[in-house]
């Protein structure tokens, strides 16, 4: 399904009290592409991801994943439909080992999971776990507690957790937040490469403009909760409204 639509966000709104964090946002993500969402701080990017992934139910609108409506379903259900997410603020299991982190994520997908024998049996997921750790250069750190990893390593570990659930669509909320420019470059290249090799579709929030322009197939721009532009990187870069609202003044 090279040209198939994977995710449709249809006129989604989300309010927190009087604050309209999202106002009638629509977008269409196709299978296999890297789709980025950009916009100034507070524009509603993280809120959009949280609605799609099931943390918040939208105030209005629909979310459709692989042809099935997922609006208002819980995150654990949506994850089973093939969506995995990382957070803007690192979200891992801090007090257990790096290996145990990825293992508990990987065992979410074995047939045993959720069945009675899981009370006394334990699946062997060593293969996929070691493979993921190797892909992110964490093999040598696997016995460390996750909380003892460096910031960059923790960001990688969280991506490992998400990938371990074998998603079709991966949502990354500022995966390079807090990284140095050098680290950001490496991380971006790695994400791109892993997405390609696994045939993943990626929905990405990223604040580094050079990264976004380099990695994305399509970009949507949010501004005060509204989508003001969508298109390929070249079009976004030259869109007068985007330049006015975002690229002009607020570039970081």
């Amino acid at each position, binding site marked *: 399904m090279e040209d198939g639509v994977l995710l449709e966000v249809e006129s989604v709104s989300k309010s927190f009290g009087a604050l309209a964090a999202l106002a009638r946002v629509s977008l269409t993500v196709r299978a296999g592409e890297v789709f980025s969402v950009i916009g100034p701080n507070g524009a509603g990017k993280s809120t959009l991801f949280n609605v799609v*992934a099931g943390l918040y139910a939208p105030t209005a609108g629909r979310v459709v994943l692989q042809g099935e409506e997922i609006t208002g379903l*819980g*995150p*654990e259900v949506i*994850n*089973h439909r093939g969506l*995995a*997410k990382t957070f803007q603020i690192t*979200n*891992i*299991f*801090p*007090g*257990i*080992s790096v*290996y*145990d982190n990825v*293992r*508990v*994520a990987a*065992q*979410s*997908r*074995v047939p*045993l*999971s*959720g069945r009675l024998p*899981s*009370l*006394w*049996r*334990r*699946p062997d997921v060593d293969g996929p776990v070691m493979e993921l750790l190797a892909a992110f250069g964490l093999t040598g750190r*696997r*016995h460390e*507690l996750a909380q003892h990893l460096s910031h960059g390593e923790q960001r990688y570990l969280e991506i490992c*957790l*998400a990938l*371990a*659930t074998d998603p079709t669509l991966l949502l990354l909320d500022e995966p390079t937040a807090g990284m140095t420019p050098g680290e950001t470059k490496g991380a971006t290249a790695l994400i791109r490469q892993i997405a390609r090799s696994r045939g993943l579709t990626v929905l990405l929030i990223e604040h580094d403009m050079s990264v976004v322009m380099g990695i994305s197939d399509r970009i949507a721009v949010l501004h005060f909760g509204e989508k003001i532009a969508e298109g390929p990187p070249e079009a976004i870069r030259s869109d007068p409204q985007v330049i006015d609202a975002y690229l002009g003044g607020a570039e970081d």
Partner: protein
Amino acid sequence: MSKAVSWRVALVFGALAALPLTPWMSKYYMLLAFDALLFGAVAMSLDLLMGYTGLVSFGHAAFFGLGAYSTAVLLERGVLSLWLCLGLAVVVVGAYALTVSYFATTRRGIYFALLTLIFAEVVYTFFRYTQTFGGSDGIQGLPAPQLLPGVAIDTPVRIYYLVVAYLLLAYLACRVLVWSHFGRVLVAIRENEDRARFLGYNVQRYKMGVCLISAILTGLAGALYPGRAAYATPDLLHWSISGEFIIMVMIGGLGTLVGPIIGGAFFILLQEKVSSYVEWYSIIVGLVLVLIVLFAPRGLLSFRRAPRGRPGGEAA
């Protein structure tokens, strides 16, 4: 389980089995040992919630007391089979635990502790202030339960061996459980509940599952109690008993299973020994507990070794 651990378990339970053969084990000490091991087992089952899942139940006395009353009601009516007593306890405690945990797990944090406490208080009030099961006197003067028809568990040594067998089985069950797929998810929930949800785990189902298991283990221990005491009274359901269970887990060491067994046994022995000397024993007991919490915040077990990281974790 690793070979070294199996050996250690075999050794400890061998020693426990040999204990009645030693000359100084009077009837009094046999019953004291029964209490120590029984409440050690209860603390261990509470550790599944507190140490592994990060849930503090303030209502475990209700599980224990309901188990005790299940046995008492049957013994009073002349149904003496231990297995029927245990069976009834599983059904009663299981049904109650599912109800409580369904409501308690819809909320997080302090609400879980609060709801378990409120439910337990309702149960306490029912047993204490209605005459359905004897009111404040409870059910007294019970006959001994029977292992098989005609084989009554009516001596301190027999009831002691019963609790040793129960502790062994419960310990092995808990060990396997925390090692299993299920147990790994419990630790993940303790570490980061949201993360576990976003990895596809139905967190409420896991919490209800572990509540049910912990409650049934506690209820079974409760069901053994009238065999030793020949009564079941509402005191067993009181919230202060739930508080003592929590203290046993804390002083033993969260998330270790063995620690809470030691914590429970230590608590019982300390309370019994000190109270036989002075009236104001609870001050001394309290002081000792404060010292333990101050100087061994990870519990008695931490004097022996310093575990890496938080409890329940496991190297690959």
